[in-house]
């Protein structure tokens, strides 16, 4: 049994920013929100792993990426689960096969008619629909017939995977058939039948017509989609091997791999009010979840598709999450319940497919203080009972301290400190971790202290700061931490808030006249005396915080601009410090 359930390596998740196309032409291509920008961590079996940070630090994105819900820009996630049964399950999609045969029969009739007319010139149409058949229509019949045969073949070959491409093929067929009216009417009927069949929601949820389902145990999520561990060459159809290769199954279109993954990894969201469909009763909600992921028995029927069994399971789940008496809650509408009760239903639903990993994204943040503890306790109990592993996402370090075995603290897409929770809380190493811990309000009026808070707010993840991303706010930053042009401008702007510096503002301002480019900031000297400007800048730098001032390489006149340039930052790498990983130049 593997001890490491999840292994994340150098994961980067970027979301494209929507920009007008002209802006893109002018502004140098697409821009991205670097939600997660190169993080690595491992989650052990049976532990509670905390991802902690402020909003916009990428913790939720990181959690969601474990479910294959986000695009991956770089890096990989490997999830390895112990396998329940190693035997692949085959299902015979008998009805679809029959439908395909019917399709071919009609296409063949088409072709035969065309050939017949092609040979014999003109005669009575066999079905007596039309007396004479003009020449071009015979050609059309032949073409349509051949295309339909090919489409039938495509349908046959696509049948093992998913409904969506099959539906597309059948749709194209139906459209062609319809276009060749009136001869296509019959064909059209058959194809619409297939469409309807493919389109009908499966009463048991999962795609029943899939050719084979394998209990996958290892999933690798990368830029190219989900690579899935188990299917060995001999268990694939020749078409799979031919077109898709032995192991890769892309996410798009081949949703069953994703479904398999979702059966193993489930998520509990922050807002229980939004997560539950208000039109359904609790029982219905759970039934849907149970049926969608029920194991499939050979022959295509579900082991547990019988209603009583499903209901019994749903009741058991309700009992497990502490909604008692379960039968009373079973019939309730979720709108009639309090936030805490709703969140329990959400948890029950997440447990329905018997997941091994539960991503809990701020599960108690929306709940009232007096019931938070209950829900946290429940989550911890369920972990023991169901043998779960948690990835617990939160902004609240105090909660994380109570429930997590190991934590990773994120800032602006990076992991700044990660390791055993006990050690980190006892002695936080990273300045950001310290700041976070200090900011937590202490519910004890006799211990009021003045807090030394980092200034400013989390910067925009589209343009993260150079070097260490925390440097503009870090109270103990060094000159090598990544100071750059815009830090200088922010400093000036902050300085000019005080009216006492207004003469400096008059000489150097307004701030719009300055341009910042990576390591430099510059200003045209057309307005004002260059000597004075340089002198003023140097005077301002003298009063600047030490690390910023010391990071300045030079202040110089270049052509008609005054340029303040900074030295390049030192390389920043995660280091092992006293039993945890820290990413900071202090160590």
């Amino acid at each position, binding site marked *: 049994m593997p001890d490491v359930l999840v292994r994340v390596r150098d994961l980067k998740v970027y979301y494209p920013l929507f920009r*007008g196309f*002209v*802006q893109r032409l002018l502004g140098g291509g697409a821009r991205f929100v670097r939600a997660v920008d190169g993080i690595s961590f491992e989650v052990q079996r049976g532990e509670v792993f905390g991802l902690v940070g402020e909003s916009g630090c990428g913790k939720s994105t990181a959690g969601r990426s474990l479910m294959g819900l986000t695009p991956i820009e770089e890096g990989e996630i490997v999830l390895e689960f112990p396998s329940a049964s190693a035997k692949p399950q085959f299902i015979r999609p008998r009805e679809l096969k029959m439908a395909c045969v019917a399709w071919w029969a009609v296409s063949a009739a088409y072709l035969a008619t065309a050939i017949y007319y092609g040979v014999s010139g003109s005669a009575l149409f066999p079905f007596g629909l039309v007396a004479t058949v003009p020449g071009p229509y015979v050609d059309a019949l032949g073409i349509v017939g051949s295309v339909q045969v090919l489409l039938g073949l495509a349908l046959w070959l696509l049948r093992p995977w998913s409904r969506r491409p099959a539906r597309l093929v059948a749709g194209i067929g139906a459209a062609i058939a319809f276009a060749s009216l009136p001869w296509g009417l019959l064909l059209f009927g058959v194809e619409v039948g297939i469409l309807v069949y493919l389109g009908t929601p499966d009463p048991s949820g999962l795609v029943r017509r899939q050719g084979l389902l394998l209990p996958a145990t290892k999933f690798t999520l990368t830029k190219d989609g989900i690579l899935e561990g188990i299917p060995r060459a001999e268990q694939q159809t020749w078409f799979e091997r031919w077109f898709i290769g032995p192991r890769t199954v892309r996410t798009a279109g081949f949703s069953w791999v994703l479904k398999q993954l979702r059966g193993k990894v489930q998520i509990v969201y922050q807002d229980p009010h939004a997560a539950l469909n208000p039109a359904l009763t609790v029982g219905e909600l759970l039934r849907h979840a149970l049926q969608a992921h029920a194991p499939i028995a050979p022959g295509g029927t579900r082991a547990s598709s019988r209603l009583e069994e499903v209901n019994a399971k749903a009741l058991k789940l309700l009992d497990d999450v502490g909604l008692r008496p379960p039968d009373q809650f079973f019939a309730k509408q979720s709108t009639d319940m309090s936030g805490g009760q709703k969140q329990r239903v959400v948890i029950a639903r997440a447990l329905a497919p018997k997941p091994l990993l539960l991503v809990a994204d701020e599960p108690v943040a929306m709940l009232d203080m007096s019931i938070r503890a209950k829900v946290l306790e429940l989550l911890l109990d369920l972990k023991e009972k169901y043998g779960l592993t948690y990835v617990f996402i939160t902004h609240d370090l105090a909660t994380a301290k109570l429930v997590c075995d190991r934590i990773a603290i994120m800032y602006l897409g990076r992991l700044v400190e990660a390791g055993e929770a006990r050690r980190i809380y006892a002695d936080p190493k990273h300045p950001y971790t310290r700041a976070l811990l200090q900011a937590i309000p202490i519910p004890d009026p006799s211990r009021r202290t003045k807090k030394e808070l980092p200034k400013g707010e989390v*910067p*925009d993840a589209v*343009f993260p700061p150079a070097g260490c991303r925390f440097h503009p706010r870090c109270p103990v930053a060094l000159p090598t931490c990544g100071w750059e042009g*815009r830090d200088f401008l922010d400093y000036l702007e902050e300085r000019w808030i005080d009216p006492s510096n207004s003469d400096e503002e008059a000489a150097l301002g307004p*701030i*719009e006249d300055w341009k910042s480019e990576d390591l430099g900031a510059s200003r045209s000297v057309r307005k004002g005396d260059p000597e004075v400007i340089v002198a003023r800048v140097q005077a301002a730098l003298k009063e600047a915080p030490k690390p910023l001032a010391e990071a300045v390489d030079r202040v110089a006149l270049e052509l008609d601009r005054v340029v303040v340039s900074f030295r390049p930052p030192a390389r920043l790498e995660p280091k092992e410090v006293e039993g945890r990983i820290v990413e900071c130049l202090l160590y």
Partner: protein
Amino acid sequence: MPRTQASLRAYVVQRLLLTGPMVLILLTLVFYFLRAAPGDPVGAILGEHSGPLADSIRRQLGLYDPLYVQYVDYLRRIFTGDMGNSIITQHSVAADIAQRLPATIELTVASMFVAVLAGMLLGVVSATRRDRPADVISRLVAAVLYNTPIFWFGIIMQLVFAVQFRWFDSGGRLSAQFAIPPRVTGLYTIDSLVAGQFRTFIDAVAHLILPALTLGLVLAGFFARLVRANMLQSLQADYVEAARARGIRPLDVFYRHALKNAMVPVSTAMGLTFAILMSGAILTESVFSWEGIGRYIFTAISNRDYPALQGAVVYYALIMVFLSVLIDIFNAWIDPRIRY
């Protein structure tokens, strides 16, 4: 914090650059739909015969050329302003349209005025008196107006105000006893004022009232619903409550915050409304014998006068594009978030 000052100018440039492709797509669609429509113009004129005469006309009209040649030719003609000649009257289509365009503009502007005024009034009244009698009544009025067939409404207006009460004439743009004012803009109301003929102006306005009311009121129904929905939303917005908490006078809160914010979606919808207005103009102009483009299109359709129809539709399309650009820029001007 990066300073990405959104500039209105950049937005306008971008919007104008996008207009080129948009016009091209629109023109292509017009071309395609007119070609795909059943029947062909020559058959329409000569009946279903296909003799040498029809053949020669078809050749002359270029109907035997490959489609792409026809398409290129079509675009070339549009950009040189040559729309061909009407099959029926043999006049130049461009000249015909230029002559009628002012009439349509006069009608459309007047109806838009009516529509916006009445629609805003109804919408604001019902939003501010939500669920009270005034709201119920104005919603009812709006619903009735919105669902009234325009030609029927026009005929009723004629029957009531022109035939029964004889307050207005039932059609035309000017009474017979007045001479058409010297052409400056082609809008009789403005031209007559320019020429200082005050009584002609009164007469032109009197003729404008019925068709403008017909078209405008039907649209007002649409506006009223839109304004009401958006007002309700913005009246409940957080910043409205915050403004109230700062002691801003209710009237100021209403105009400066609620109404202005509600106007953004409304003015977007106004662009769409122009499309409705244009199609409404066809019916209205027919009912009121208003010699504008709408009536021109109507006659062209009944006569299957393809060049005339094509020319008029192209004009409509270009006007629509122009208006939508105007409205987008207007929106960007009031709402800075659109620019970025």
